[in-house]
């Protein structure tokens, strides 16, 4: 009677958004070719339809709209080129969009082509100019430096050193070598053929190798002079500034000359002739300088012109980029459609949420109307063999929690969604491990800052770490709130207890409090109203008391959460109409868990309420070892022994119950269905081809008993062993919370209090700094992370393995919003 009422109640429950994924429909679109493009782009704006690729067997260039896709690719290449150019020119591509009428794609293509040609022309012009400018500049430097080598020879007319000495000097100081030069120069002005020189300029990084090569090629019969150039010269290709060195090589002989010239060429050294005559030199220098200044002016004008052109492109660059990206997405989607037999219509298939059908229909009508098409777009629902995608409508708040669940696996279509419960249980379990209201307030501030600056932060690009933090800001908020709550229960504020809810229930036996650690305190009034009594702090029995409390609490929380998981498996089975799972999986599972650990939880509660001294370990262990023995002083309530025997028997029965019946019943059903026919249905090869990998299609007709049985066996064993190990796993709640409180105690007592004990401002400040750093980095960051990970594990493994399949696939609608997001 009660059951029936429950069923009635459950059946009449309103479906809730996040409990199960949205109902999806498999739809077919038949779009006349003339309105196809518009229809698809409207659908992209709507973003509620996921297209199926009907041409998966075709390679990309065999598809219908390959040319358009290529054109879009070409256009985006041009746009990238513009962007690159703009960045190189150091202009900022202004983000403020200029309102201009939408341009057609064809127009845009032409426009882009023009811009590109213009730019390339300007670039090549300015490159030419730059090159001649560079040449002149280099020439100027060579003149200045090389003339220095040559001219100095005249001024130092008398240098009476031996050649040997000068050779020694020449290695380390080129200023000295000039005197060697001048000797030689003086000796040869009459016979021109004897000693000649080549002057030029070479990148500084190559000088040493260049000199060595020259030395080898001429067998040492040369003299190499070098001086660093004053200015850096821009490399026209990489547009980087290169340091260069001016050199002058003196040699003799025609053969050496060709060799040296070849080497110069090979090393990329530019040679410039420097006349020996001083007046000529002056004249050329003047010429070069005047031409340089001319060129500089031209170059500047060119660059200004180019920058203007780039700036005008830059205004619209973002808009164009988005547009091209959208167009490309539209054509990519169109490529997924099939032409029908008449070649006049495109046929598309896809998934949409059932609630969106009206919207899509309306959009399609608008598209038909806007493109003046005679024929409307046909939109109808079809049957699908593969399982639909999973789609949850989330908001800013629930999204992060859904992500936590999805990271483990995307829910099967219409499966119970653990994210609903995760919203509360996740931050709570986190807080159990992170219970400290001081730390909780710090976390809360961080979360509030993130939330307060939400609108600003969401628009800008963040680093990967900040992005993660920002994405989980609401998780962080709840975690902080629950930490404060749990911290109040543990009565810890940076590990210091406070008398917030009135005075302690304990006091010392005498006024001196000398025996507080030996004899303990005395209880003199009602228990502390909320949380842990502050007097436990620092007492002899602090640890045993808190450990016992936290350990038991962990088990209670764990058993509760695991029961929730099993109950969800009931709702799953009910929803999918699988009574077999309810009877032979859910019922024995819940019996098994509750007979063992449910009973333990009961004992814990009774012990807490009655204040009994019974040893629960003993009770649990001897419940298995000798269930018929007398419990003695460990008896908590009347009739405990027969109850234990009953529970034990139930648990023992539950094991074969979940193991055996299900596979045999499945086998029976299977043989009944085919009524002893030995022939199976011929698998149509067509159907097999459609099968998408990963889609959970439920028409496996061949039934393999041994496989099913082994599967069931694995499941049962896993559950039975898991019941024990998962319960033990929840003890991590205790362990981590203990670690957290001990760690913060250490930092408080051994760092802050210790430093405060000295009467020295510096030591105090240092102590404060160390304490602050330790709190911020170790307790707030690392402990948060570790508690987060442990809470994550408890949800993924201990909670979700009871009911969650997680083998679905996500609904990825074709939407412009997601396309513009995931660039850069």
């Amino acid at each position, binding site marked *: 009677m009660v059951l029936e009422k429950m069923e009635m109640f459950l059946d009449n429950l309103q479906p809730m958004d996040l409990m199960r994924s949205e109902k999806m429909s498999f739809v077919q679109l038949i779009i006349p070719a003339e309105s196809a493009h518009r229809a698809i782009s409207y659908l992209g704006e709507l973003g509620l339809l996921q297209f199926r690729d009907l041409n998966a067997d075709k*390679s*990309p*260039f*065999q598809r219908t709209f*390959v040319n358009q*896709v*290529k054109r879009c*690719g*070409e256009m985006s*290449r041009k746009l*990238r*080129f513009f962007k690159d150019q703009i960045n190189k020119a150091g202009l900022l591509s202004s983000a403020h969009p200029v309102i201009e009428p939408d341009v057609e794609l064809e127009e845009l293509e032409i426009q882009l082509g023009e811009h590109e040609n213009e730019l390339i022309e300007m670039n090549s012009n300015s490159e030419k100019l730059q090159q001649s400018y560079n040449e002149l500049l280099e020439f100027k430097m060579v003149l200045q430096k090389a003339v220095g080598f040559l001219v100095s020879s005249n001024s130092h007319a008398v240098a009476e050193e031996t050649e040997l000495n000068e050779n020694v000097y020449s290695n380390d100081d080129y200023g000295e070598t000039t005197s060697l030069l001048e000797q030689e120069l003086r000796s040869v002005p009459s016979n021109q053929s004897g000693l000649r020189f080549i002057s030029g300029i070479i990148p500084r990084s190559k000088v040493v*190798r260049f000199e060595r*090569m020259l030395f*080898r*090629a001429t067998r040492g019969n040369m003299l190499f002079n070098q001086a660093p150039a004053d200015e850096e010269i821009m490399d026209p290709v990489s547009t980087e500034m290169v340091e260069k060195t001016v050199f002058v090589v003196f040699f003799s002989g025609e053969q050496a000359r060709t*060799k040296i010239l*070849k*080497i110069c*060429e*090979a*090393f990329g050294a530019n040679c410039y002739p420097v006349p020996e005559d001083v007046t000529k030199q002056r004249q050329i220098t003047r010429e070069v300088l005047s031409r340089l200044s001319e060129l500089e002016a031209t170059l500047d004008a060119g660059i200004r012109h180019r920058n203007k052109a780039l700036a005008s492109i830059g205004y619209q660059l973002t808009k164009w980029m988005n547009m091209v990206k959208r167009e490309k997405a539209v054509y990519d989607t169109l490529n997924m459609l099939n032409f029908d037999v008449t070649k006049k219509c495109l046929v598309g298939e896809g998934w949409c949420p059932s609630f969106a059908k009206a919207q899509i229909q309306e959009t399609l009508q608008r598209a038909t109307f806007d493109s003046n098409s005679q024929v409307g777009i046909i939109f109808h629902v079809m049957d699908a063999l593969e399982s639909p995608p999973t789609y949850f409508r989330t908001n800013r708040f629930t999204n992060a929690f859904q992500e936590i669940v999805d990271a483990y696996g995307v829910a099967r279509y219409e499966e119970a969604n653990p994210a609903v419960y995760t919203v509360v249980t996740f931050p709570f379990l986190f807080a159990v491990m992170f219970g400290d209201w001081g730390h909780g307030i710090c976390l809360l501030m961080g979360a509030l800052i993130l939330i307060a600056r939400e609108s600003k932060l969401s628009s800008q690009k963040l680093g990967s770490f900040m992005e993660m933090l920002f994405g989980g800001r609401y998780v962080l908020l709840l975690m902080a709130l629950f930490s404060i709550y749990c911290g109040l229960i543990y009565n810890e504020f940076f590990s210091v207890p406070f008398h917030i809810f009135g005075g302690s229930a304990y006091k010392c036996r005498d006024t001196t409090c000398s025996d507080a650690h030996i004899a303990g305190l005395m209880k003199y009034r009602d228990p502390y109203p909320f949380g842990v009594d502050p007097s436990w702090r620092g007492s002899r029995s602090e640890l045993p008391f808190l450990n016992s409390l936290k350990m038991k609490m962990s088990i209670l929380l764990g058993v509760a959460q695991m029961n929730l998981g099993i109950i969800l498996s009931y709702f799953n089975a009910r929803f999918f109409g699988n009574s077999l799972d309810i009877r032979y999986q859910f019922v024995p599972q819940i019996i098994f868990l509750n007979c063992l650990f449910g009973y333990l939880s009961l004992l814990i509660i009774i012990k807490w309420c009655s204040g009994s001294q019974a040893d629960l370990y003993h009770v649990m262990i001897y419940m298995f070892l000798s269930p018929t023995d007398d419990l003695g002083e460990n008896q908590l309530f009347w009739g405990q022994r027969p109850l234990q025997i009953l529970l034990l028997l139930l648990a023992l029965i539950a094991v074969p119950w979940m193991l055996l019946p299900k596979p045999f019943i499945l086998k029976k059903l299977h043989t009944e269905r085919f009524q002893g026919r030995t022939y199976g249905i011929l698998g149509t090869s067509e159907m097999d081809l459609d099968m998408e990998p990963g889609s959970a299609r439920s028409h496996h007709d061949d039934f393999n008993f041994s496989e099913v049985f082994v599967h069931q066996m694995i499941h049962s064993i896993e559950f039975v062993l898991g019941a024990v190990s998962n319960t033990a796993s929840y003890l991590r709640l205790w362990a981590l919370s203990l670690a957290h409180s001990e760690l913060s105690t250490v930092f408080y007592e051994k760092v802050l209090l210790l430093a405060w004990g000295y009467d020295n401002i510096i030591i105090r400040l240092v102590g404060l700094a160390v304490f602050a750093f330790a709190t911020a980095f170790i307790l707030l960051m690392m402990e948060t992370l570790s508690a987060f990970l442990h809470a994550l594990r408890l949800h993924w493994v201990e909670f979700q393995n009871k009911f969650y399949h997680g083998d679905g696939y996500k609904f990825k609608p074709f939407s412009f919003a997601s396309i513009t997001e995931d660039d850069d």
Partner: protein
Amino acid sequence: MYGFEALTFNIHGGYLEAIVRGHRSGLLTAADYNNLCQCETLDDIKMHLTATEYGPYLQNEPSPLHTTTIVEKCTLKLVDEYKHMLCQATEPLSIFLEYCTYGHMIDNVVLIVTGTLHERDVQELLEKCHPLGMFDSIATLAVAQNMRELYRLVLVDTPLAPYFSECITSEDLDDMNIEIMRNTLYKAYLEDFYRFCQKLGGATAEIMSDLLAFEADRRAVNITINSIGTELTRDDRRKLYSNFGLLYPYGHEELAVCEDLDQVRGVMEKYPPYQSIFSRLSYGESQLLDKAFYEEEVKRLCLSFEQQFHYAVFFAYMRLREQEIRNLMWISECVAQNQKSRVHDSVVFIF
């Protein structure tokens, strides 16, 4: 310490081995080749390649594409990967990686020297050089008139210097001399590489000696076939064979006296590993020999990935990538010249 590489290999080589295996899984698959072979224009090829790991290298190329651009960009990817690995590598592995490029270095030297002999422009020649075999003073090669100068001016600075000791003559450079120089250098290089790998020991030595022996034997066969009907004497020919490999020494004796292709075939069929290569060819046919050798090589290179904790994977990966680039070049050429029927002639699939 054969068999104990697993203990210590990952200290220095683990990261790079993971990298190289990752690169290897980025090689084009048979499905990719099938799609590429169906392409109608070079743009189609570009479009297909942008969906593969070559994407970032090709996507910024303006549309009228040339085969050379495709090959250049694909090679650039290999070079980038190689440089990255070389930067990360520590002592024995970095030397090993450098050894892998010496072959290209020899080819580049020969290319430049031959080019200057025929009075080609140096810059043009430099563009044709394989980027893996570049060294600093390569452009200066054009200055040299004979081998002695070649050595003294340029090559003494390069790692090729020790290999040169056998071929320094004062003779002027001509085509024949250069070809002999190339083979002598290659012989010295292979032997040196072989010794180096033996010194490394372990699985590296085992696998590399197999791969290098195959390389040496292939070169021996190619030298023999190419020198049939030239003025190269038997003794000179014998000298060009590397002193290791499956054919060493008895096979070399026999190869040295071969006068036509069928005699070579007769010699080679005595060696079981090469029997299958030659049995596929009909008599008197040598064009397909290259492809058959390449296929065998690819098979062996792929097999080297089956073992872990050795350096041969780096060698194998680079060879495989080069083969892939050759394939791409062939396919693009065929597509560009509308010779699609010949596409399959020279493509060696990598599995």
